[in-house]
């Protein structure tokens, strides 16, 4: 990456050749998903170099992790990727259970799959709506939030919160599902499935959307792996990797017996389990359009998983099982576990030293690596493409800055 040493951090506009401009996009810019500041070196409209400055939302959650017991740290994991808080809680709980070699009840495992997939659905809806906003059309954003509100109502019934739930915790969940919840979830899924076709017509197959995203910000497979990208960004580049199938046994055991295909373009075509809109000619594997398309397909896949999870959950009898005590002693040793969150592989690393308080709690963010590849994608693009590429990476600043 080009050397850009600025000795005095406050003065960012140092002497630049007359025809080139240093332009600040963010941190208060409406389109960069939260507080991200991009410094673009542009020559007229063409961006020659992008330097991202992060850390505006940094709360040093890891330092706090060294003073709280694992169950007390759950609310901090909510606030990392606040659009998919359920998946964050699940990741941390599984890491702690892995260190303590604790096995939750089968009912709890199906409940966790059900809730995690609902969380992925809600998160992808926001991703889709915000991406429409980046490209200038306002309506998909409102449609997406109309559906997301219904999911939030369902979550509100389970744990009382709409954004930061702290519902899934170490040893299962804080409470079982209220009666009648499954029927409401069923009703939501039934009315949601036909609407997906609407979203496809609104954005995915829209000629202008394709013009703005196809062949923009092309991320090659090798580059994606090298920069540690994961989730839809990785699968959009054609890498067949999904931790729900390839992850550690404690995580993949939750998904045993679930029929689902990893959404990736393998040997030229996407999974054909449903009628998905065709891939346009201009789209190149690894461009912004494919990343968006993978997310839209995962929405359909999540709906199937939720239905299967609901059947299995209602089939299990017996109590959900109590979560562990708040100050459960941690064994000496360390454990690292990555789970498939909507934005990528979110890793948690826990070092126990025998006391209930962990010695070190570390969170590895998926968007952190996804964003690090931005300067490779934006080299030589136009200014209007930068928000298009950032939108396609679907980053959340809470998770990056921790």
């Amino acid at each position, binding site marked *: 990456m080009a050397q850009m040493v600025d000795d005095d951090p406050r003065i960012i506009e140092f002497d630049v050749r007359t025809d080139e401009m240093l332009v600040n996009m963010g941190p208060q810019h409406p389109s960069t998903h939260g507080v991200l500041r991009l410094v673009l070196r542009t020559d007229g409209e063409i961006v020659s170099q992008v330097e991202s400055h992060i850390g505006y939302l940094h709360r040093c959650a890891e330092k706090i992790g060294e003073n709280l017991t694992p169950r007390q740290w759950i609310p901090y994991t909510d606030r990392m990727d606040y659009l998919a808080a359920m998946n964050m809680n699940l990741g941390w709980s599984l890491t702690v259970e892995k260190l303590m070699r604790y096995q939750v009840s089968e009912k709890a495992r199906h409940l966790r799959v059900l809730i995690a997939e609902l969380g992925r659905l809600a998160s992808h809806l926001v991703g889709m709506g915000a991406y429409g906003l980046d490209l200038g059309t306002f309506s998909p954003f409102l449609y997406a939030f109309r559906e997301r509100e219904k999911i939030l109502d369902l979550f509100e019934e389970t744990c009382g919160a709409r954004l930061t739930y702290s519902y899934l915790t170490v040893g299962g969940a804080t409470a079982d599902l209220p009666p009648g919840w499954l029927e409401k979830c069923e009703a939501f899924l039934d009315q949601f499935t036909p609407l997906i076709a609407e979203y496809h017509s609104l954005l995915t197959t829209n000629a202008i959307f394709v013009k703005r995203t196809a062949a923009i910000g092309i991320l090659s497979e090798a580059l994606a792996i090298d920069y540690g990208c994961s989730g839809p960004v990785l699968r959009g580049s054609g890498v067949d990797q999904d931790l729900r199938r390839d992850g550690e046994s404690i995580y993949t055991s939750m998904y045993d017996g679930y029929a689902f295909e990893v959404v990736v373009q393998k040997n030229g075509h996407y999974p054909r389990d449903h009628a998905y809109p065709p891939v346009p000619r201009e789209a190149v594997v690894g461009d912004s359009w494919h990343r968006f398309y993978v997310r839209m397909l995962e929405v359909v896949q999540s709906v199937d998983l939720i239905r299967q999870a609901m059947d299995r959950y209602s089939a299990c009898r017996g109590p959900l099982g109590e979560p562990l005590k708040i100050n459960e002693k941690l064994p000496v040793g360390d454990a*690292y576990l990555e789970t498939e969150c909507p934005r990528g592989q979110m890793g948690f690393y826990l070092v126990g030293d025998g006391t209930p308080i962990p010695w070190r709690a570390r969170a590895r963010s998926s968007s952190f690596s996804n964003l690090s590849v931005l300067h490779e994608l934006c080299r030589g693009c136009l200014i209007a493409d930068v928000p298009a590429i950032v939108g396609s990476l679907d980053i959340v600043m809470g998770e990056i800055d921790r």
Partner: protein
Amino acid sequence: MRGSSFLEKASSELPGAIIGSNLEAIDPWIEVVAERIAEVSQWLKKTPESLFDSLECITAIDWFEPDAKKAAKVQWKPHIEMVYHLWSTVARASIVIKTNLPRWKGDVVGQLPEIPSVTGVWRTADWHEREVFDLSGIFFIGHPDLRRILCPEDWVGYPLRRDYEMPLEYHGIRAR
């Protein structure tokens, strides 16, 4: 992972680099000499059957007990442990590399411990190492652009160190 056979192959090809291992732990790990971390990583990435082409996470753990009473009971002496989690997208396997560093270089407080940078092997290390430098104060030799990434550029001190004192004020904003 047929760990033991893999371990012999590794120690045979990298004499003296691997100085310890524990394959029965929850996450099997091998311990490597700090100076040769880049070489080991290069080897792990290149060997046909391992192909660890993705660096998942770099963590710096500060083993130091600030108050004297507890320090007496603890059996390890103060040091910094660097933990590298690797993942292979081909073999779908993971491995952990650990190295130990002194808390301060030559035990002179203020001199950051140094370790070779692995940005040459995996490009994702660029940002991860900048974060470890920013929060835990480890200097990576050969890193192209070692600057603070999360804290403001002119922040003083390394927050994740056990003996870190929050400054009283920063640019006129009361911090404590």
